[in-house]
């Protein structure tokens, strides 16, 4: 058994090879600091508690802002205030906590402010459980806030990708002045992997935040952060402007991975932790001489519909695998445009599928086909 000091020493030595072994939640916290996050506002909820715990220390060390709010509702509204003041700002939470933030997220989207929201999904509905789940796909991509708005949703499958997507999230948020959610699950949050925190990500050209309400001495005219529009003629124009922005995001920000597509008989569609497990299933199937490819959406909104246009006609069908009872399935059915048979395999309640279960679902594809 290694002592705490020995573990720290090992980690320090790892630094020299630029990779550090760390837990997903710690990586999220460190990536936020590396991405220049000015302020964090959050409220405790399992399985993401290490994020505010690490940030409470890290942000202080870097002379930045950390506030533990009185509720998720307050936290997201502090995010709104800080974002309206021109800061790079984030919050983190999990499922039921994200539900409480939805009103604030709608206001942030409506007022066109940038922020990053980390959601480390647990099982639901209601208080549910604290084990990993993907049952908040709808919550993330469709949102529970009011009005016509979208949140960019990034879904990592490893700790390294979590770090990279965290950095990207701040850039995308600032570029489009829109909330960006990094959607992980309890497994990503809790597992440990070696990561390179310094791996560069694409820098965007971000205009100065001239919209920020920082006092009229500091800019021309008056800046008012607002989502109120009682005049329907005005509000429709605002909605249309948001729509134009969302179309730009759809055009430029779709990310996905196509894996093992050569000679594929079936295609698995999976994201996050389940995509990771599906890789093992694909390897096992290969040993049985069954070639299976995978489409792994990295952006869940905008959904990588165009990836589905690239599927060759020879493919027998698509198997959607989720840690839910079928939420991304809707998007796959839309993207598929009726071309291929679609089967579904899901686990719920915090149960994580074994690779063998996914192998079995491919072997019994026809039994799993959905209408």
């Amino acid at each position, binding site marked *: 058994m290694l002592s705490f000091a020995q573990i720290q020493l090992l980690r320090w030595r790892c630094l020299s090879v630029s990779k550090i072994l760390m837990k997903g939640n710690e990586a999220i916290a460190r990536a936020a600091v590396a991405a220049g996050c000015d302020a964090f506002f959050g409220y405790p909820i399992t399985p993401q508690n290490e994020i505010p715990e690490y940030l409470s220390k890290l942000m202080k060390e870097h002379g930045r802002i950390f506030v533990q709010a009185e509720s998720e509702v307050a936290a997201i509204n502090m995010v709104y205030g*800080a974002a309206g003041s021109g800061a790079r700002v984030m919050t983190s939470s999990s499922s039921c906590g994200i539900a409480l933030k939805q009103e604030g997220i709608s206001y942030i989207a409506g007022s066109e402010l940038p922020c990053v929201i980390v959601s480390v999904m647990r099982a639901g509905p209601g208080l549910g459980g604290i084990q990993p789940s993907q049952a908040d796909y709808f919550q993330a991509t469709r949102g529970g806030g009011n009005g016509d708005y979208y949140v960019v949703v990034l879904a990592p499958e490893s700790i390294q990708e979590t770090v990279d997507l965290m950095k990207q999230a701040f850039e995308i948020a600032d570029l489009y002045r829109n909330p960006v959610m990094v959607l992980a699950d309890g497994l990503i949050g809790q597992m440990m992997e070696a990561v390179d925190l310094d791996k560069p990500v694409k820098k965007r050209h971000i205009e100065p935040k001239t919209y920020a309400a920082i006092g009229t001495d500091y800019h021309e005219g008056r800046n008012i952060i607002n989502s109120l529009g009682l005049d329907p003629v005005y509000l429709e124009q605002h909605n249309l402007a948001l729509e134009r922005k969302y179309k730009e995001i759809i055009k430029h920000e779709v990310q996905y991975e196509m894996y093992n597509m050569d000679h594929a008989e079936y295609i698995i569609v999976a994201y996050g932790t389940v995509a990771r497990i599906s890789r093992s299933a694909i390897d096992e199937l290969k040993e049985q001489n069954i070639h299976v490819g995978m489409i792994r959406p990295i952006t869940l909104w905008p959904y990588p519909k165009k990836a589905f246009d690239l599927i060759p006609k020879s493919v027998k069908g698509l198997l959607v695998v989720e840690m839910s009872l079928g939420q991304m399935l809707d998007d796959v059915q839309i993207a598929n445009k009726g071309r291929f048979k679609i089967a579904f395999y899901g686990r719920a309640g915090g149960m994580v599928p074994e690779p063998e279960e996914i192998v079995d679902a491919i072997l019994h594809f026809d039994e799993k086909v959905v209408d």
Partner: protein
Amino acid sequence: MIRYERTKGLTDLHTHYCPGCTHGILHKLVAEVLEELGVLGKTVGVASVGCSVFSYDYINTDFQQVAHGRACAVATGIKRVLPDRIVFTYQGDGDLASIGIAETIHAANRGENITVIMANNATYGMTGGQMAPTTLIGQKTTTSQEGRNIKQHGRPMKISEIFSQIEGAAYVERTSMHNIAHINKTKKAIKKAFTYQMENKGFTLIEVVSTCPVNWGMKPREALDWSKEHMLPIFPLGVYKDVMKS
């Protein structure tokens, strides 16, 4: 010699407030104070949901308009990022004492260096005169049509008394708008609150007993008299907390 000049703290827009409503005068007091303290250009206001939601149109500073009850959380976010600016919220009794009580109490408890202006007119004005947490016992509203009763609705919430107990609060005063003398006292209280904020003393709250003639079903003058006769015994005026005197 110029005896009176309109404050630069107000924009030129006409307000949407009903005849006899005290919001207009209260806006002017805030605006005058910010101008007199020389901080108009360094101030960020937070407009809450309620009749005063459009205060960002009338008070001539930068503003954030926020969700119902969340003003003090948003103000916290602003002030933490911009500690050298003046940050204030302008809220009604429904917004602050009901849906926003948690955000307000915790902002006070953290000692957030912000100023809260709360207009207490014992009703939800914008939505048409429903019962508020501050509605008086026996007072008829659209959701307490036989008058508020203790058994069903509890008693009116006394915000200044509650906040006087919060250690992070630096200054809490309740004032009234029912006559010119008290309007002047209100201005003095507001000025003290903003001065305390400029001196980094912490959370300041001015609860202003106001009127809502339309929803109360009264003429403006009657409403002022009613507020004096019926509200002030329940909501006594005075300084409830002053960190410099305790």
